[in-house]
């Protein structure tokens, strides 16, 4: 190279250094590349697709409709509803599978298409899947309610009770009613045709055989399900010597007329949460009863006058009448939070019994406090039945469609 010719002398070590730099730069450039961006954010987006889709279905009430369809044995409508909504919510490149239930699977084959085998293979072979979950407390199987309708009562009252049962019935309930004491007892002891009640409702009753009360308490209530009682059921079964509903039903027990409204004193309880402060009652025509209560804290017996209401922790409502301002009686008993049963009351019995010291069916159908009594009865029946929890899972993955 002559003096007037200019240029670079690129040494071997400098070349190596440049190579290293180029490799480093390529590495840095890869950080912004689509593969790494997807690796980091693609899965996050997939997770959010799943969570958002389930969230939208929950918020707009589609999940409720799906659950109601399943509960009313309309699985095909539930599947169609789920598929249509997920197709509308998710982008076309994202596929899905919806499963409702766990030990009992209620809905397992909701894919974008109807060829379940092919979609199942695609689901199994997906490289990555994201899942969003919910747990529903809404019943996926109908709530089985057994109602005792005592046809020995005056016929107009029997009709009122029948009408009241019609009024409280919900689409997701499976209500059976019986007036045959033998059949009633069989339902309690073993069920009939595989049908055993989740809850028993006795709106009113005359005296029942000891064997029936035995079946109700010792077989059914303690071991299986809950009982909601009302009307003259306890009053007319005074001879049965057992603290049922937290009440010792040996004498003295009196019937009193004239109470006009039930005063709700505990609005923190789920049964009475939405009730007004006073629930009207046709007390001139239908009596209420003075019972000897057991204090679940001490096991002592007491007639809970108004002074003792704080002392009786299971009370959700009491009778109020200005004339008896100092002699108010318990009107609604259901377990309050944190109370431990004493005095011979089995734990499950105390947990899962509700007593309405009222002929609520008759009062409601006479037009006195109708809506409030219906709500109270519905909430009491749900309270004594055990809650069911079922998972809902939505899986999503990226991939092609089935042929």
């Amino acid at each position, binding site marked *: 190279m002559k003096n007037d010719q200019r240029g670079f002398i690129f040494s071997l070590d400098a070349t190596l250094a440049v190579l290293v730099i180029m490799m480093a730069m390529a590495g840095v450039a890869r950080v912004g590349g689509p593969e790494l961006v997807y690796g980091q954010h693609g899965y996050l987006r997939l997770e959010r697709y799943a969570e958002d889709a389930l969230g939208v279905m929950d918020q707009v009430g589609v999940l409720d409709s799906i659950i109601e369809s399943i509960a009313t044995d309309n699985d095909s409508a539930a599947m169609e509803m789920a598929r249509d909504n997920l197709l509308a919510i998710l982008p076309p490149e994202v596929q899905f599978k919806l499963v409702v239930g766990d030990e009992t699977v209620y809905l397992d084959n909701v894919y974008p298409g109807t060829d379940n085998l092919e979609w199942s293979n695609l689901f199994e072979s997906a490289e990555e899947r994201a899942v969003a979950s919910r747990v529903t407390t809404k019943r996926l199987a109908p709530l089985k309610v057994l109602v005792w309708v005592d046809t020995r009562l005056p016929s107009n009252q029997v009709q009122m009770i029948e009408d009241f049962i019609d009024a409280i019935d919900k689409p997701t309930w499976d209500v059976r009613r019986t007036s045959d004491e033998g059949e009633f007892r069989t339902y309690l002891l073993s069920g009939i045709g595989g049908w055993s009640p989740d809850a028993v409702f006795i709106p009113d009753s005359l005296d029942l055989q000891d064997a029936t009360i035995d079946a109700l308490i010792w077989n059914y209530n303690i071991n299986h399900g809950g009982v909601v009682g009302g009307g003259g059921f306890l009053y007319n079964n005074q001879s049965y010597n057992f603290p049922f509903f937290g009440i010792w039903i040996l004498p003295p027990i009196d019937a009193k007329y004239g109470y006009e409204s039930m005063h709700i004193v505990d609005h*923190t309880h789920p049964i009475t949460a939405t009730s007004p402060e006073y629930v009207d009652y046709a007390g001139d025509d239908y009596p209420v009863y003075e019972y000897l209560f057991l204090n679940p804290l001490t096991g002592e017996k007491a007639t809970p006058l108004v002074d003792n209401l704080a002392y009786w922790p299971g009370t959700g409502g009491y009778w109020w009448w200005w004339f008896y301002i100092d002699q108010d009686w318990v009107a609604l008993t259901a377990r309050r939070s944190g109370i431990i049963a004493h005095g011979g009351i089995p734990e499950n019995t105390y947990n899962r019994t509700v007593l309405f010291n009222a002929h609520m069916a008759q009062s409601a159908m006479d037009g006195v406090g109708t809506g409030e009594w219906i709500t109270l009865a519905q909430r009491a029946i749900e309270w004594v039945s055990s809650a069911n929890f079922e998972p809902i899972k939505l899986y999503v993955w990226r991939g092609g469609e089935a042929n």
Partner: protein
Amino acid sequence: MCLNRDRRGFVLSGLALLLILPAMLLSVSCLAMVARGGETVSSQIISDKVHATGLSLEDTIEWMWLQSGVPVDNGTLWRLADEWENTTGLLVEVSNVDDNYAKVHVLVMDPLGNARFEEVMELTEFLENQA
């Protein structure tokens, strides 16, 4: 070391070394960025899941108390928490506060404790809002 004619090798000049050092620093930074990026995304996924679970749990409890008579006693709430744990793999605790059905403590967290959702629900407030 003496370098003979027949022994070949590199002489790493000061300039070349200066070029390599930033390249190494850049590589280390790059790896740290990738690791941090992955960690951020994973935190986002976990916190999304914890948050969505907490909110959904609150909706469920509100429905149980307000729309139905489904029990909200401790026995039922503990079963509900177990079901959520089994379904999501998160740690879930739900219980009554002060022996009050209308006051419910909700806690959701991931097993490593990186994300946490905690709230005490005053259910009677929903009633007031409804009115």
